């Protein structure tokens, strides 16, 4: 319990230091007006309007909404804090007269991403399976996937780790096929209530081939569908093949 509170305290201190470091940015409104919402979402009511020529400070960002504070040269009590939408930043200029541009969230930005995290669901042979991928985007075409899959069946459980190379065939297209090749390990353990069927956990290495499609859905989100075939090396002479179908979504950074 003590460790629990220490962790909370550390998180809090860490957070304060992050907040204290953030630099404030002052801009002047160039459009006739900008609506100020009471919270970081379009559903929050507009409670204030900033007029052309007024100065605002940009404090922080959350999901494309910016927290701002109006700058009053007469009385600090007149200063108002609220949230404006990212697109409205294009109606402001910096102190040197240069216009400010919001984060575009364009397809070009997507092509310059470094990491992806994906969650996919589907079936591993006939068992429901979920797979989590962590991806490092190396070049426009090549990326490295690390994945963990679990398929918990009625008779036994399969857990699969894998590391693979993925080749996106047409990275400049919004919808593109990809191919993947990799290797990893499969751990199969029988369920506790079927001990007589063998209690041992079987570990075997595998090779895999994947064929899939990724689609750039919107700023920050991709959808993917994939077929994956795994060839497991067993201690017997023959190899075993397992098929997996996956559908899911990715977020990228």
């Amino acid at each position, binding site marked *: 319990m003590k460790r629990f509170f220490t962790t909370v305290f550390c998180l809090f201190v860490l957070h304060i230091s992050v907040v204290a470091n953030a630099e404030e940015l002052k801009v002047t409104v160039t459009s006739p007006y900008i609506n100020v919402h009471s919270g970081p979402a379009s559903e929050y009511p507009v409670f204030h309007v900033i007029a052309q020529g007024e100065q605002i400070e*940009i*404090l922080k*960002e959350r999901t494309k909404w910016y927290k701002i504070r109006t700058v009053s040269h007469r009385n600090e009590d007149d200063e108002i804090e609220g949230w404006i939408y990212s697109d409205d930043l294009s109606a402001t200029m910096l102190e040197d007269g240069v216009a400010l541009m919001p984060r*575009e969230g364009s397809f070009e930005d997507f092509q310059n991403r470094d990491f992806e995290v994906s969650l996919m669901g589907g079936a591993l042979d006939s068992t429901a399976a979920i797979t989590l991928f962590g991806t490092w985007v190396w070049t426009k075409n090549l990326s490295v996937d690390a994945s963990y899959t679990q398929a*918990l069946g009625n008779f036994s459980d399969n857990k699969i780790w894998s590391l693979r190379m993925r080749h996106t065939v047409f990275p400049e297209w919004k919808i593109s096929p990809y191919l993947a090749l990799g290797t990893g390990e499969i751990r199969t353990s029988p369920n506790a209530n079927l001990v007589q069927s063998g209690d041992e956990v079987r570990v075997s290495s595998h090779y895999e081939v994947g064929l899939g499609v990724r689609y750039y*859905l919107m700023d920050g989100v991709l959808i993917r569908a994939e077929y994956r075939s795994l060839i497991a090396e067993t201690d017997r002479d023959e190899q075993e093949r397992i098929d997996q179908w996956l559908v899911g*979504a990715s977020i990228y950074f």
Partner: protein
Amino acid sequence: MSLFFSNFYPIQPQNRFSILFASVFVLLSISGVTYAQQNELPEIDPGVERRSIDEFDIDSENVEIGIFAGVINIEDFGSDVLLGARLAYHINENFFVEASYGQATAGETSFEVLSGGAPFLTDDQRDYVYYDLSMGYNLNGEVFFSENWVFNSDFFFTLGAGNTEFADDERFTISAGAGYRLLVTDYLSVRFDVRDHVFNSDIIGEEKSVHNLTFTMSVSFFF
């Protein structure tokens, strides 16, 4: 059918349901995210010099980390204290994805209490651990405690899938729930969550689907 993966018997009705659920869950999440996107890019005049907001160091708060404590009703094993942690990423103003981890120690079944002995599970087997990945949808709002004392808040729904480890057995678990988040400041929130965790279990004999409800209070930080 192969001998090696002897678990792959013909599809069981509950497996078929799980597969269907996993697919539908993912597809629903995707269509929901698309629906939430309604904003277009502004028109940009190429003649004007511009600097991107990305060049400035603006604190971005899209990740939420939290710890929770509460009660879990483990079917047949009574109500117990639950402790855990969550990590969420807010994709846009409505959607978020969240990973949760929780642990509890199961109590005794009515049979164990009434028979006055003969423990059903060992102490180690009573450890109940779960994790899941969920998709959440926020209904944004405000709460007015008085005229000048106003907080942002949201009511949210979650739907997810994961794993439950209990009595030396691991099960594919579906979780669904709702909660309320009160933002005390921009970056500090207090949450109340109710979730149902559903999985198939044969711990007390025949295979059945069990519902384990959790009620938790949590404190979370956005950073």
